[in-house]
């Protein structure tokens, strides 16, 4: 016996519904969309993540170095092992300032794949001198 396909209006509607869902799903998981994401990356770069790191000098870990988000007062300092966990989740293109008195300040830009910062600090080679001012009146040396 031959089966005959009958297109009742109800069946047509439900088929259309499935097609619509399928289309929406295929758009959502479209691999092309994912690739576009990788190059222009508005989604991933905005994804905030926790940044950790370690700060050292030529002798080893640097304790009490400060790490601050540029243009803000959000920051932290390193522990005795030179380690830190930045208190605020960061996104790509954020800039961290790493400072330690007597060392050159370092700016680290957060890249797409940055999660850990390993930073060596170099000493600012300054020579310390000092002349004090005084309000003691000048006195000529006179032969007695």
């Amino acid at each position: 016996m031959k089966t005959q396909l009958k297109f009742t209006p109800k069946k047509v509607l439900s088929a259309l519904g499935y097609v619509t869902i399928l289309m929406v799903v295929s758009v959502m998981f479209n691999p092309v969309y994912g690739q576009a994401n990788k190059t222009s990356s508005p989604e991933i770069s905005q994804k905030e993540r926790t940044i950790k790191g370690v700060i050292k000098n030529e002798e080893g870990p640097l304790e009490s170095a400060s790490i601050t988000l540029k243009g803000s007062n959000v920051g932290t300092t390193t522990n005795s092992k030179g380690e830190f966990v930045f208190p605020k989740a960061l996104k790509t293109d954020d800039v961290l300032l790493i400072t330690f008195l007597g060392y050159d300040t370092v700016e680290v830009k957060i890249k797409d794949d940055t999660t850990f910062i390993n930073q060596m600090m170099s000493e600012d080679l300054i020579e310390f001198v000092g002349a004090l001012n005084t309000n003691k009146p000048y006195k000529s040396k006179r032969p007695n």
Partner: protein
Amino acid sequence: MIRFLFLFIFVFHSYAQISDFDGIDFKKADRVALKYKNEKLNNLPELAHNLTLNLATDVERFRAIFTWVCSNIANDYGMFSKNMYKRQRFKNDSVKLKNWNTKFRKATLKKLVKNNKTICTGYAYLVKELADLANIKCEIVHGFAKTSTTNIKKIDAPNHSWNAVKLDGKWYLCDPTWASGIPNPTTFHFEFQFNDGFFLANPRLFAINHFPANKKWLLLDDANETSFEAFIESPIIYGKAYANLNTHIAPEKMHNVIRKNEIVTFKFKLKDTVDVKNVRFLIDNGSNSSNISPNSVTTKNNYLTLTHAFKYRGFYDVHFYIDKDLISTYTFKVKS
């Protein structure tokens, strides 16, 4: 014609200095500095941020940094004298001098963070670091400084550091160490005494007791013609000169030889008007000192001109005072 030239030099030509910012009241910046008093130095970016956040102009932001450094960092006399002694001792041994400098740098920075104490390079360094963090261009200037107790014959290597700062496209000078205070002359204990005059001072006045290792930091048009010898020969000016004077014009030299009854002219450009009754000399002839009123005192357009003649032969130390403020010292050898 001479009058015109005079006007041209002193009125039309004005160097980059505090008066460029006459419309700005620094009280707000000073209040911000006061608010963060006793803040420690372990987080400079945060300190720089806090000091500058609510201020509208670069000059106010820099002022807050300058005032903070000058009122929170103490001058360490012990460190200063130890360093001077070692540098003098090792001055002909470059290896030992280098080792000392490295060791001293580390100790100095440690002390600065831990105790908020330093010597002048520490002040200049801190001002620069904080300014850098606030995106204000600032340099440390190393050079020679001269005070009433400087042994001029021994001044063979830079002994002081100060700052140059770029504001609205122009360079200005300031000396945070000398602005912070002075050691008590008898106990040598440092006493905070903020002297606003060292903030963006007139380069002409600054050059009387500061001579940079690199002459470009004189910030003078005639920097190339300005010699170290002229600096050494210039009069002694005190901290209070910066508080009272825009600049010092005459006499140009510390040591002067004149004849009996010869008229000597003293000329200054004032910051504010003064009561001519309060202008005096303290003259020391070697056996006693006495307060003497100048023969004549005139003020015109903020210029103060004094004349004086010595009646007797002798050798005199002449200290110039405005009220209680000691401004400058000269010596006069008076011949018959």
